């Protein structure tokens, strides 16, 4: 190996040369397409606008003062009139100015001397053409600065406006009074920066909550050992759509039943308070803490019934809670004054509850049905004889395949409106059934399949695909979907948070110590118990630190997500840049810098505390 490397070889040199050439070409092409051009930077026009922008950026539009202004309009003759200029003595009780000489030719310089102005005031001294002292047109750009006695001397070149009549020179001297005040820009910036921070906060919280369960599914060490027989897989697959349908139906019934009771705050209050108490007792009875011996069948069925009723009552409770929120919110908005946002928040919460309850119900019912049918499948393939299990496998697997592909076909039809049922309905159903049959034929009746690994790979693939889409691009998509504004930003950042955190979290789960996992499994704990008692304690510190890290990123992202319409301060910044309003843009950039560094500091402190 070694002496082969040391031998000089013509091929090696050629290869080195080729690599060098390729790198050079790539660099040159890169320069070409990124338009690197230093000449451009040095051009006169660029330089000037650069200076202008830099100066504007150095003076952020944050503070302003209340101003006090004094004006005095002094007469002057441009071209001395025949017979000499006659100028009345000014009133010296207030501020006044004297022009010397009182007449001159265009292009000549005159001196303007002011007295009795506010001390240290400043302002323009300009020529007012025409013989109207109230004319608003002014020429020239001289400024004067008064001394502590309110006295100033300015020189002015007379413009080419010769006239027989008297004309004027006006001094407009102003000074700042009182304490500095925030400008309108500062107020707008503040409002938007708050929006930005909350956008980041909501996205982080939502993302974290959803990423945690996903991270367990995407962890190889937890999923590797999950295997189930085909009958169980097929039946639990069938359980999802059935359960979801049943769930939606049931929740809708509960909603209809609840409808008449929701408008009355008193009813709301009583049911919101009483139902949890009743439910606690019911659930205590239906789910005894001990699981030492199997209870008799009758008792088991009774308990299941009570659990089902509890679920119904639980949904009723959620609707009542939503009603309570909305009623309280509506009646309090008027009373709360500047805290009306609390009332609006309650109304929003109620709305969210009403929207999410059917979804929760559908998902819960789907999960329960899937779990229940899956167990039946498991039991069947454990207890029944080979032939029966094979038949069950054939039927269930074909049905599951047909259902899954049929639903996919329905989705495709809904998306693309193909209108050819052979392709989107009968076709997929037949293909699904055949695939299911094939799977059932080629697996031994009682063999277990690696469900866990399949779920793991599917989840990983989806996560990796979504993660490769930039949050900004997601924001554009959501802006199209839900309209311009912070909601689109929250959705985009939230989704991106879910996928990237799920990935980071799951890597932590994969690197935990296996010993405690083994020990807890050995006590007879089931999978969920093992996760709660052996996995969760080990991953809390890294989860917190990754969440803080993500919070950091989200604050940063939320400042620019407005560039594509996702709400937050970016929207304002982009607008001001486009309007060439650089002083305002500068204020917003400073706000971003301050917020990002504060968040950075806070998160680093919290991370230190957590670990």
């Amino acid at each position: 190996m070694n002496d082969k490397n040391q031998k000089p070889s013509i091929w090696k040199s050629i290869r080195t040369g080729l690599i060098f050439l390729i790198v050079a070409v790539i660099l040159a092409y890169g320069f070409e397409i990124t338009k690197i051009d230093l000449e451009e930077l040095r051009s006169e026009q660029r330089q000037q606008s650069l200076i202008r922008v830099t100066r504007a950026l150095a003076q952020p539009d944050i503070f302003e003062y209340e101003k006090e202004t004094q004006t005095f309009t002094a007469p002057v003759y441009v071209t001395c009139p025949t017979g000499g200029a006659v100028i009345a003595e000014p009133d010296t009780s207030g501020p006044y100015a004297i022009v010397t000489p009182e007449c001159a030719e265009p292009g000549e310089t005159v001196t303007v001397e002011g007295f009795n102005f506010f001390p240290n005031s400043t302002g323009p001294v300009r020529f007012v053409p025409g013989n109207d002292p109230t004319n608003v047109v002014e020429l020239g750009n001289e400024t004067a600065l008064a001394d502590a006695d309110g006295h100033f001397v300015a020189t002015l070149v007379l413009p080419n406006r010769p006239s027989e009549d008297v004309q004027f020179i006006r001094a407009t001297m102003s000074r700042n009074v009182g304490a500095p005040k925030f400008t309108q820009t500062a107020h707008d910036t503040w409002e938007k920066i708050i929006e930005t921070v909350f956008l980041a906060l909501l996205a982080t919280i939502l993302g974290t909550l959803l990423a945690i369960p996903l991270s367990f599914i995407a962890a190889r060490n937890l999923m590797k050992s999950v295997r189930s027989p085909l009958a169980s897989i097929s039946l639990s697959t069938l359980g999802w759509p059935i359960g979801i349908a049943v769930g939606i139906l049931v929740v809708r019934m509960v909603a209809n039943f609840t409808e008449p009771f929701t408008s009355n705050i008193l009813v709301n209050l009583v049911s919101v308070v009483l139902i949890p108490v009743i439910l606690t007792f019911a659930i205590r009875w239906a789910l005894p803490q001990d699981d030492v011996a199997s209870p008799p069948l009758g008792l088991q069925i009774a308990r299941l019934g009570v659990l089902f009723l509890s679920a119904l009552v639980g949904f009723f409770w959620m609707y009542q809670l939503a009603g309570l929120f909305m009623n309280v919110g509506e009646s309090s908005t008027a009373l709360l004054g500047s805290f009306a946002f609390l009332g609006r928040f309650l109304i929003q919460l109620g709305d969210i509850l009403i929207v999410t309850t059917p979804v929760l119900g559908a998902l819960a019912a789907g999960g329960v049905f899937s779990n229940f049918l899956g167990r039946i499948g498991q039991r069947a393939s454990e207890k029944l004889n080979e032939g029966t299990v094979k038949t069950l496998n054939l039927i269930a697997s074909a049905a599951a395949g047909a259902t899954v592909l049929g639903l996919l076909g329905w989705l495709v039809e809904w998306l693309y409106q193909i209108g050819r049922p052979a392709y989107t309905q009968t076709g997929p159903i037949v293909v699904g059934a055949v695939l299911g049959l094939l799977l059932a034929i080629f697996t031994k009746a009682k063999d277990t399949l690696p469900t866990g690994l399949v779920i793991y790979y599917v989840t990983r693939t989806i996560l990796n695909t979504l993660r490769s889409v930039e949050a900004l691009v997601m924001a554009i998509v959501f802006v199209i979907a839900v309209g311009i504004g912070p909601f689109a930003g929250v959705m985009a950042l939230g989704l991106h948070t879910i996928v990237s955190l799920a990935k980071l979290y799951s890597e932590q789960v994969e690197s935990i110590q296996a010993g405690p996992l083994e020990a807890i499994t050995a006590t007879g704990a089931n999978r969920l118990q093992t996760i709660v008692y052996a996995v969760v304690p080990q991953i809390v510190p890294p989860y917190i630190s990754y969440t803080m890290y993500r919070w950091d990123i989200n604050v940063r992202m939320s400042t620019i997500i407005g560039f594509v319409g996702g709400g937050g301060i970016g929207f304002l910044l982009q607008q001001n840049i486009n309007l060439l309003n650089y002083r305002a843009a500068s204020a917003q950039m400073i706000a971003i810098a301050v917020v990002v560094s504060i968040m950075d500091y806070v998160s680093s402190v919290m991370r230190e505390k957590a670990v």
Partner: protein
Amino acid sequence: MLQVKNLTKIYDGGVKALDNVTFDVPKGQFLAVIGLSGSGKSTLLRCINRLIDPTAGQILWDGDDITTATPEEMRRIRRKIGMVFQHFNLVHRSKVITNVLAGRLGYVNPAWSLLNRFPKEDMSKALKQLERVGIADKAHQRADELSGGQQQRVGIARALMQDPNMILADEPVASLDPVLAHSIMKHLEEINKNDGVTVLCSLHFLDLVHRYADRVIALNQGQLVFEGLPSEIDDKKFKDIYGRDAERVG
């Protein structure tokens, strides 16, 4: 009564860790499992509570076939088999009392235990077990703040919480000093004698075997090479178990 019949385990890589192993353990016996490192002791113990699925063979326990048990049955079997590990396998960031309570997970309703709710009897039972192994005062400390010997006591208390009929101990004293080793072994002995719990314990030191075991089985490259009383291990048997070049020190 535990019956192991023709047990074979071949790992995915092709390593034959157990090769047609057959033996019985009567109820209440203290059985030592000895053998060189890599001879298959850990594999054997883990096959008995199905932390590892055996490739072939049968394990019968009080008539139930462990090798074909369904997940639901496995939960009921495992909760009667306590396990003690060489590296203790405590959950470091949890409190001692939580680690001990985890021994009840096979008995409590999963839904409640997920909320960290245990029946009151279990709480007092956990404290009693900690008292029994002599570290009641450590109950509310974090597990990783304890010394090795204390951690192994927590491990034993966790196994005791299971009201076990059998304890599998995989080199329970290999990471402890000799004095601690004896105190831990005494705890196991006391549980074995007083509660009538069957103990299967893999050990590296023959003096411990002589002192505590009722009976010994020895493994060499996955095969059962000796079965009998500790006193029956003479120099010839020793060389069969540990190889030609082994020197007897214990």
